[in-house]
């Protein structure tokens, strides 16, 4: 009976997977042109990101503030980092969609179609893993137990260095959109 239920669950998840793939095939990606890229990007402040991930900043806050104030400050920093991760993930999606339009989404490939797509997937993998950890930390009553994890340990997730991965995405975007006008390219990099 138990195995029957598990096999039914597997069959149902397979059916849902097929429905999702058909939906993807039907709708395709949003047809973006260059005018739909720059305004849709949210700037990510890399210096803020570095300061949040700096172990020295964690140590300094721990040293300067009372334990209670430190926990409050740390929760605020976690929410800030969560927002940065959302922006990183969103920007990578926008860039990958525009790149798909440039390359022609109808083609089949043996792997990622371009360097930009590969970097975008890495950014999304990093931000997804890190957001999961942050959401767990923020939902747990860590204050009650008197513990507060350091943000510095979020620098790497799934074997990926967050700021470096985002830097690589920016460099890949500059290389991929070489045919843009210099002014457009500059706006693009500034908005990333």
């Amino acid at each position, binding site marked *: *009976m*138990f*195995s*029957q239920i*598990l*096999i*039914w669950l*597997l*069959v149902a*998840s*397979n*059916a*849902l*997977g*097929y429905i*999702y*793939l058909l939906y*993807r095939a039907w709708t395709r990606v949003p047809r973006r042109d260059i005018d739909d890229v720059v305004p849709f990007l949210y700037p990510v402040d*890399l*210096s803020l990101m*570095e300061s949040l991930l700096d172990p020295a900043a964690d140590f300094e806050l721990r040293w300067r503030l009372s334990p209670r104030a430190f926990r409050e400050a740390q929760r605020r920093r976690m929410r800030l980092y969560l927002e940065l991760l959302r922006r990183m993930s969103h920007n990578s*999606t926008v860039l*990958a969609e525009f790149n*798909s339009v*440039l*390359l*022609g*989404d*109808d*083609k*089949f*490939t*043996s*792997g*990622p*179609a*371009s*360097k930009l*797509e*590969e970097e*975008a*997937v*890495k950014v*999304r*993998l990093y931000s*997804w893993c890190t957001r999961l950890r942050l959401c767990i930390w923020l939902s747990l009553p860590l204050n009650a137990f008197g513990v507060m994890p350091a943000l510095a340990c979020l620098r790497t997730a*799934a*074997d*990926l260095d967050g700021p470096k991965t985002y*830097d690589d995405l*920016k*460099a890949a975007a*500059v*290389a*991929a959109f*070489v*045919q843009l006008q*210099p002014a457009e390219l*500059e706006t693009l*990099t500034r908005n990333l």
Partner: protein
Amino acid sequence: MNVLLQTIPLWLLAVLLFLLLRGHAYKVCPWFFAYVAFGVAAGLVRVLVRNYPHLYYATYWITEAGYDVLGLLVMYELIRTVLQKLARTWWGRLIFPAVLLAGIGLSVVRALSAPPQFSGLAFYIVTGEIAVRCVQALVFTGLVAIVLILGIRWRQYPFGIATGFGGYSFVALLMTTKFSDFGTRFTFLWGWTLLVAYSIAVLIWIWFFSVPQKPETPSPDLPAPSPGALKQHQATMEQYLDWLRRMR
């Protein structure tokens, strides 16, 4: 069942083998190429020995075991291909063994609660076959989840292979769990439904592999950058790197 109808998957597999050879897909997914080549050879041998019951019985079960082993190797190849560029973590290497254990576990529990009507080696082959279908269904579901979460393009060969296997395993598992209620009509339904499902799976693979692989560079339709544009690009890159240096 008509011999011509029975051999439809064989003809389709032969077309697929030709497409794989033409597109040099054996370099990209060698185990899948081996699976298709084995499928063509096994299908031909089955047709040749169909009038010799004992020989056909032995050939059928031996080739079924071969399909199972190669089916598992293809699943390993898919997981490795998709995950190698995503994560090189210690847990990344545990995914395939975990999926394999889950598939074997499900199949063994099912074999204990509702044993297949076979004895001897055939019993183990049928149990192994259900395990392979479970592994294929799990891999397909996992890959769809990756597409959903990470927004990866699903128009890639590994996803096409998984889609074919996923559809076939979906039908096979559905029949294993539900269609046995049909009683005496079961064998007839089993044969036809699996034939149609496998033919559809091969058609999905043909669709994926019939489109020439795109080089991993920008489309040639885009205008090639002029020397001036390249200089501008170089200047922008230098400006960008300088900006990065200043940020640090």
